[in-house]
């Protein structure tokens, strides 16, 4: 048994009483049969009569049901069938996921005209086919029942013609004062061109870009340092040492998918020549990026500048700061490593203070990052908002100096730090138009509403970074009476074209001819110097539906070697000349005062800025660190918890008081005169004086009763809005400030998804350090191997009385690399989308009824004040000797000859024995009919939560994958290894008279993963990647979870390696 200790919650760490009790109860809630308890049934007055009544009723009901005639079903073919569409066959189209400034090149799967799944576009060298949880979930927003369905003038439905005229008249009438176009960051060059036309047409008008979470600090610092009002491209793949000052670059900072792909390059271990990058994180609370770091130092948010100054000082920049102790030591050590890796290091900072960013620029200058890990040749376009412009606009609105305001993509009434002031100004503006897809807080205050298309219904282009284009093309005919924002703008600009024509003309002219334009639509991306002589990756002539599908899905990722083949040669990079005023910045930073207790706002990886809060899939994604869903809360340290509530989390009895129930104590936080009340979660690894709160929650319509109708049921009443706690320091919005916190005598339930899957102290994850691994690769898991060796040379065969079964042909297997898994949950949401998994809502999650087939388990280990975190994706292990299969009384779960643990819904009678007997806790039971699978409509209203009721509406059900059964109430389900994809892949091979190609068939989780941590394939094929990983490439790191139980899993993991000199994992007491 391993000496190392990993824990998921404090109860497990402390071996508390309640925890041990919980271990014994798989299903912890009471069964709903109070009136039928043992005593009651015998004392009841007339049980026999009742029995007869029930019997009589059920017989009569059965007779009625049985004698019903079969419903007549209609089959309605097309009148004129489009050539490229065949019912039952998916088409794939390249497009770009857009949300605020975020842009990810994607390929959209379309079935019978409906987009049902989003995959990354692997032709993009930036993302290499990676996606994020937000990107994966975006398809559900298309079928959002609360989308605006028609244009409105003063809240009344109007035709486009009428409203266009009203707008033209209104703009003319208010021409005396400037027209302002307020948008989120625009990455499209054609949109920008149209906006420029409008500005020319209406002199004095201006375009203000506004980001919910501002990157003004970086933009202004770069203006000061390099004379460029932009953000450069970062190249984490070229860095051997990565230092992040509070930047959550894998989770929410700038373009996490791109960074995750780059980051993974040097985090993959090649066992023959083990090497990996060093990642050092300075932060105030646990971010997902911090959880992946090799070293992590804690400081208050106000000390970020001081840390930067100290680091610059240690690098010889002549600056100094007041930090002391372990943090100062850490900075020194970090500086030494940076110097040693000059030209191969990168420092990034999440602060929005331009002065701090100037110092960070100076640090990057000192370590020679320019042109190596920072590229000024192709600055990124994800965020372009300047805080001062927005402040001016707010003032102008209040002063009545704006003639007309056109709003698109921006929602300052919700997410601006001075939202009330903005709303007041908006009401004063004589002419306001919103082009929002939804009735958000800002749109609610606008007079005219012309709803725009969802991006899946739109045309467009996105310039992710300079000269890296990605196309947007409609995958579905607009569902409602909506019109694309750009088309509406063209009307304002007085153009006769609609946007589609405009877009087409523009790009054909830019690319030279129509074939190149069509190639662009086909590939979806157009990159760098290839603009003029692009040779397309896909030959149009080869495109049969089947091969189109395979070109869209083939990613030959390489998890073993540190080399992900880029689609293009790495472009030339450029540095820029630094001319920032370091001493001035240093003076200003030194003046920053911190508080005793500080509050920091951050973005949750799923909800982000909150613009898509009505996405139930996202709400149900567990936060990677806290594992909480459907809420925001104040994260505090165990020290602060002790101070506030007198709960010593490391004391077994007291911890139970806090931990065992979903109800968490509430606190009052006062900051800048604003007060909020919210529950707390105690998370080790948080700085003792820091409170961290996620933004993006607490969406609420101006008319509060309309929140459910306007913003949506899934966002209604979820969490608290903390945007107003941000402060403006004169140049930038700062997302951390000093605050006071005090205890309230109230409790509030938080639905956490992990506390109920307890490992019983069994060694589930394996971890080592790079030094140990290099010294003794075989030492990893040596004890476990020895333990298994007692049974004979072949554990699978010798440790059982039963015969082993042949797997002729195919045996599917999966390998998950814990070293490159960053915990981002893209796989979870991809799985939800692919497999029609139910979303259950907060109450059901809190009583452990969550349905996700793949979850990311988070284990703390090591120092309890500043622990390490190991993420482990956990899904059905498809055991060849599965404990679940033996206990099913009706054989509804059994094994296939391809090694799949099959779950047969229509045979399942819902005993839940399998769930109880699964050592991995990956089986999920349908406690209610969440997806509307039942033949009686609406019989679950009132049973399922309000937040998820819309998911069984006809509109939302359009997102369901027609190849996967929608499970009814009362049956068990679990990961199927995406058996529908396996069957489709095999069928394609058979139709083409060939064997399956390795990498051709991918599970949804594998395909979604931005770091390619998941590998899947046929283990029986010696040439396959998965077989090579298991047999040679990753032999030493490979392990099976709970292998000693002889479950013979078909999923293996590769042990986590941390590049540190510390010992990882805390010692486990010998019991």
């Amino acid at each position, binding site marked *: 048994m391993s000496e190392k200790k990993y824990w998921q919650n404090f109860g497990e760490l402390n071996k508390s009483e309640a925890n041990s009790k919980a271990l014994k109860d798989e299903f912890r809630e009471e069964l709903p049969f109070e009136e039928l308890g043992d005593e009651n049934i015998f004392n009841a007055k007339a049980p026999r009569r009742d029995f007869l009544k029930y019997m009589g009723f059920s017989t009569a009901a059965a007779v009625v049901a049985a004698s019903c005639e*079969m419903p007549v079903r209609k089959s309605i073919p097309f009148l004129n069938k489009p050539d490229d569409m065949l*019912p039952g066959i998916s088409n794939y189209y390249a497009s770009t996921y857009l949300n605020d400034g975020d842009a990810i090149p994607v390929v959209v799967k379309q079935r019978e005209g409906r987009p049902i799944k989003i995959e990354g576009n692997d032709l993009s060298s930036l993302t290499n086919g990676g996606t994020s949880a937000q990107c994966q979930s975006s398809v559900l927003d298309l079928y959002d029942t609360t989308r605006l369905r028609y244009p409105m003038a003063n809240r009344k439905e109007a035709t486009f013609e009428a409203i266009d005229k009203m707008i033209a008249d209104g703009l003319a009438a208010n021409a005396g004062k400037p027209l302002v176009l307020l948008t989120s960051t625009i990455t499209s060059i054609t949109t920008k061109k149209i906006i420029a036309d409008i500005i020319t047409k209406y002199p004095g008008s201006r375009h203000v870009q506004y980001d919910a979470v501002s990157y003004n600090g970086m933009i202004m610092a770069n203006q000061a340092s390099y004379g460029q009002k932009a953000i450069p491209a970062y190249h984490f793949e070229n860095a051997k040492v990565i230092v992040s000052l509070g930047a959550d670059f894998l989770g929410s900072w700038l373009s996490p998918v791109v960074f995750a792909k780059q980051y993974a390059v040097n985090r993959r271990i090649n066992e023959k020549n083990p090497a990996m990058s060093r990642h050092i994180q300075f932060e105030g609370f646990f971010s997902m990026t911090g959880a992946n770091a090799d070293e992590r130092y804690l400081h208050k948010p106000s000390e970020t500048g001081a840390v930067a100054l100290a680091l610059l000082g240690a690098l010889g920049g002549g600056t100094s700061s007041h930090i002391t102790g372990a943090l100062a030591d850490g900075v020194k050590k970090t500086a030494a490593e940076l110097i040693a890796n000059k030209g191969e290091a990168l420092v990034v900072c999440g602060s929005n203070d331009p002065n701090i960013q100037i110092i960070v620029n100076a640090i990057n200058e000192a370590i020679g990052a320019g042109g190596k890990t920072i590229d000024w040749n192709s600055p990124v376009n994800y965020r372009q908002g300047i805080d001062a412009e927005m402040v001016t606009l707010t003032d102008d609105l209040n002063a009545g100096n704006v003639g007309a305001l056109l709003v698109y993509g921006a929602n300052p009434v919700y997410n601006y730090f001075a939202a009330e002031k903005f709303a007041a100004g908006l009401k004063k503006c004589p002419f306001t138009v919103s082009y929002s897809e939804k009735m958000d807080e800002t749109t609610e205050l606008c007079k005219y509403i012309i709803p725009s298309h969802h991006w899946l219904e739109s045309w467009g282009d996105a310039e992710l970074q300079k000269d890296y284009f990605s196309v947007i093309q409609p995958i579905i005919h607009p569902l409602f009476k909506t019109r694309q924002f750009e088309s509406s703008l063209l009307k304002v600009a007085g153009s006769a074209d609609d946007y589609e024509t405009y877009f087409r003309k523009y790009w054909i002219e830019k690319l030279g001819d129509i074939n190149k334009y069509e190639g662009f639509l086909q590939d979806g991306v157009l990159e760098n110097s290839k603009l003029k002589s692009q040779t397309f990756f896909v030959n149009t002539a080869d495109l049969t539906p089947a091969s189109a599908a395979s070109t869209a899905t083939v990613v030959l990722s390489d998890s073993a070697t540190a080399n992900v083949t880029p689609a293009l040669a790495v472009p030339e990079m450029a540095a820029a000349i630094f001319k920032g005023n370091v001493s001035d910045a240093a003076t200003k930073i030194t003046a920053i005062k911190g508080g005793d207790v500080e509050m920091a706002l951050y973005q949750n990886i799923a909800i982000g800025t909150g613009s898509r809060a009505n996405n139930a899939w996202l709400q149900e994604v567990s936060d990677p660190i806290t594992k909480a869903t459907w809420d925001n809360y104040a994260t505090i340290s165990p020290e602060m918890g002790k101070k506030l509530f007198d709960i010593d989390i490391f004391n077994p009895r007291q911890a139970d008081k806090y931990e065992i129930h979903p109800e968490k104590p509430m606190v009052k936080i006062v900051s800048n005169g604003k007060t909020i009340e919210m529950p707390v979660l105690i998370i080790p690894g948080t700085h003792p004086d820091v409170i961290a709160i996620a933004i993006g929650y607490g969406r609420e319509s101006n008319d509060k009763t309309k929140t459910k109708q306007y913003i949506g049921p899934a966002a209604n009443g979820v969490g608290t809005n903390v945007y107003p706690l941000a402060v403006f320091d004169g140049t930038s919005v700062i997302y951390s400030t000093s605050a006071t916190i005090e205890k309230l005598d109230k409790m509030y339930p938080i639905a956490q998804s992990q506390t109920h899957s307890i490992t019983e102290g069994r060694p589930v994850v394996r971890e080592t350090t790079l030094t140990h691994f290099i010294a003794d690769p075989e030492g990893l898991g040596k004890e476990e191997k020895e333990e298994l060796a007692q049974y004979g040379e072949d554990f699978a065969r010798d440790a059982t009385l039963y015969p082993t079964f042949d797997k002729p042909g195919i045996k599917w297997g999966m390998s998950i690399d814990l070293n490159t898994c960053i915990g981002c949950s893209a796989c979870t949401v991809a799985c939800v989308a692919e497999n029609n998994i139910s979303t259950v809502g907060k109450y059901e999650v809190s009583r452990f009824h969550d349905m996700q087939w793949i979850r990311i388990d988070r284990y703390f280990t090591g120092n309890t004040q500043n622990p390490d975190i190991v993420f482990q994706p956990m899904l059905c292990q498809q055991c060849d000797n599965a404990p679940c299969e033996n206990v099913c009384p009706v054989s509804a779960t059994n094994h*296939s000859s391809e090694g799949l643990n099959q779950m*047969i819904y229509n045979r399942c009678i819902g005993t839940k024995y399998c769930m109880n007997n699964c050592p991995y806790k990956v089986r999920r039971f349908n406690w209610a009919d969440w997806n509307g699978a039942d033949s009686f409509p609406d019989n679950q209203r009132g049973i399922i939560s309000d937040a998820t009721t819309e998911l069984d509406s006809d509109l939302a059900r359009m997102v369901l994958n027609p190849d996967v059964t929608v499970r009814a109430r009362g049956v068990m389900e679990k990961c199927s290894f995406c058996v529908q994809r396996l069957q489709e892949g095999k069928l394609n091979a058979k139709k083409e008279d060939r064997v399956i190609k390795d990498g051709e068939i991918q599970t949804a989780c594998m395909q979604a993963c931005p770091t390619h941590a998941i590998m899947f394939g046929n283990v029986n094929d010696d040439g396959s990647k998965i077989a090579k990983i298991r047999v040679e490439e990753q032999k030493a790191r490979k392990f099976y979870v709970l292998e000693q139980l002889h479950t013979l899993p078909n999923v293996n993991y590769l042990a986590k390696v941390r590049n540190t000199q510390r010992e990882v994992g805390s010692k486990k007491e010998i019991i």
Partner: protein
Amino acid sequence: MNQISRLFTKTLVVLFFLTIISPEILFAQDGEALFKANCASCHKPDEKYVGPALKGAREREPSKDWVYKWVANTTTMVNTDPYAMKLKQEAGGVVMTTFSDLKKNEIDAILSWADSYVKPGAPAPGAPGATGAVAAPSSDNSVLYGLLTLILAIIGLVLLQVNSNLKKLTDEKDGIKTPPNVPFYRNKAYLLLVVIVLFVFAGYFLVEGAMGLGRQQGYQPVQPIYYSHAVHAGVNQISCLYCHGGAQDSRHASIPSVNVCMNCHKAIKEYTGEPIIREDGTNVNANAEIQKLYKYAGWNPDSRTYDKPGKPIEWVRIHNLPAHVYFNHSQHVKVGQVACQTCHGEIQKMGEVKQFAPLSMGWCINCHRTTNVQFNDDKGNGNKFYSIYEKFHEDIKNKKYDSVTVEKIGGTECQKCHY
């Protein structure tokens, strides 16, 4: 003793019917076979089809040997003989094919069979309900066995009754007191027996019925347009895949869109073939059906343009599988090389389509158990996909077996169809 005699009479009645029906069956079978081989496409024994009903034909005809002449020379008689001319008029101008090969005694056999024909399902005239099933043509002997069992059971009961009566008599003789006589319908032993028998029967039919819920073998709904597969696929030999192209590429065979119909029907405005007769004997006005198609398509056959907005045709779906079953046509048609008729029956002979197969799981599984996979051999025949099953190839080479069934490569595993 009265009871016994009554039972005896009943048994006799049953046995009597059995004896009078049996020779009929044997005799009628020749006539039936001849009828099916020669006449069934245009005649029905008891109702008007293309031609008149054959039942009672001999009585209607002008003379006893008229029919022998008629069958041999239809083409000449139709223009000379007044009765034949009348028939032609009744049949809408369609003239019967000449069957010069049919001998007199064969014609007699057919007509005799038709005269004695009883519609299946309807009780034979005069027979009580219990024996009605016997009259239905049945090729297996289960009815006979059932009847024998019934008779034996009745005999057993009679003997039991006799035995108990005799015992009573001897008991009386010996002076042993016996409980008072109860009528048999109040005898608990009998009642129990009846209850058990009822329970077994009811249980059997309930389970059978429950399993059949949602199954629609034989389902033949009326469609918005009378589309005859017999005309298109049968007479005109249009390939199934011309319209149902999805069958080789996709999960769904798919019903063709209206524009596919119009590919041919722009030119084919009129139906000129054999008259199409519904199963209930009514005539289909094929030209009116084509006009319906034009209406759906929005096609004006005179100006040869689509001058009206069309609308899709709402066909009634015949083959329905439950939502938890995944079935892929291309797997069977393209990969498995299964003929359409294997599952859909002789579709090229159907007017309106009828569900041929039960589409039950047992039916699927049975086929998967017996069908061989297109395993590739040394000569490169078969599908190369299966080359990964090295062990099976080895075994075939070593002559352990010569073919591999779908079941053997996992074709009966749950998750091949349920996911």
